């Protein structure tokens, strides 16, 4: 499993503003849940909705 040992997964949270539909992706934070609101949009002050949480494998 030498190859697998070198790999690690980074988790991301993708949020979308319910008003202006602006999308932003940041690192996953504990307590993030898909389809729950989390913070406000820095452009229009609308509520941000978590639309995706996903992992990306880094390294080979």
């Amino acid at each position, binding site marked *: 499993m030498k190859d697998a040992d070198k790999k690690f997964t980074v988790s991301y949270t993708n949020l979308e503003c319910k008003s202006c539909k602006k999308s932003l992706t940041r690192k*996953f934070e504990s307590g993030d*849940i898909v*389809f729950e609101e989390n913070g406000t949009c820095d452009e229009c002050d609308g509520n941000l909705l978590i*639309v*995706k*949480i996903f992992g990306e494998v880094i390294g080979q």
Partner: protein
Amino acid sequence: MVSSNEIKKSIDKLEKFRNDAKAEFVNYVKKSLNPLGDPGKKLEDFFEYFTIMPVDLDPNGIVPKINHLVRSRDDFTKMHVKSLFTEISEFEITKVQNLLEIVTTLQMFHKATRHLYLTAKKQKNLPLILPLQMMIPFVMEESQALKDAMTALKNGQPIGDGIGPMVVGGMMIEHEKQKVSFQTVLSESEFEDRKLLLVKAEGPNATVGRLGEAVEKIFSANKPDLIIMVDASLKLEGEDSASIAKGFGAAMGGIGTDRFQIEDIATNNSIPILAIVIKQSIHEALTIMTKGIADQASSVRSEIQEMIRDNTQPKQTVMIIGVGNTLGVSQ
């Protein structure tokens, strides 16, 4: 062909997986959940629990028996997990139940493979090693996936298997939700003059809900003209991850009792069942959802809309069921 030496190495690796998973699980319970006293002994007892399936000499009527057995086991585990803590949320209980299942499955894999290997050696019975040679790569693949699944479970992150509930959960936003059976929710909405009955396990818990029971209850008040089931599906070698496939019949894995209930109702009422599946490997299904799979949610919703247009008329009712573990996915 896998050699005897390689089988031994795999069994040792399985033992390590099991030990690591046990230690990780006990550590999580102790450090993150504030249990009453030392839960080590009680958890160790749980790891040894087994399930005896009902006699199938006369298979007629076996499904309710299996259903009863599985439900009783779930209720029992939940009650005992709860008793380890003064206060614990439903979300954490379901996570602990899933983690417990991973450890017991790894334990069972290790015991079963070791038994076959040692018996073959002891009896110098070479043919006995053949099924093991064939099975071990699959067992190892699933074991690796189960071991890696622990991270997503501990963090409460959606797994690949959650794509069905994620698709349907997205259709439930802004609509009223009601609990329809244990850990299962129903929401009603409309699409191009059709009534939609949306059903999924209750997120963000780590649960698949009781969809069979839910469909039975919904049928007493609403008879749909079409059922669409959305689920993750294991991809065949050579197939692309996150590809979408459509077909006929109830898309649902697991032990089969919920699927039986849904098929039974659909058959008795002559309702067609259509399926949309999102292909993935077992590792992708059990670990944090990949970007490729998550990105498919909106495409699947478009496919559902097309299916509704093509297969129903205005004023008709469509039931859409999101099948899978809804960990980290609300509605």
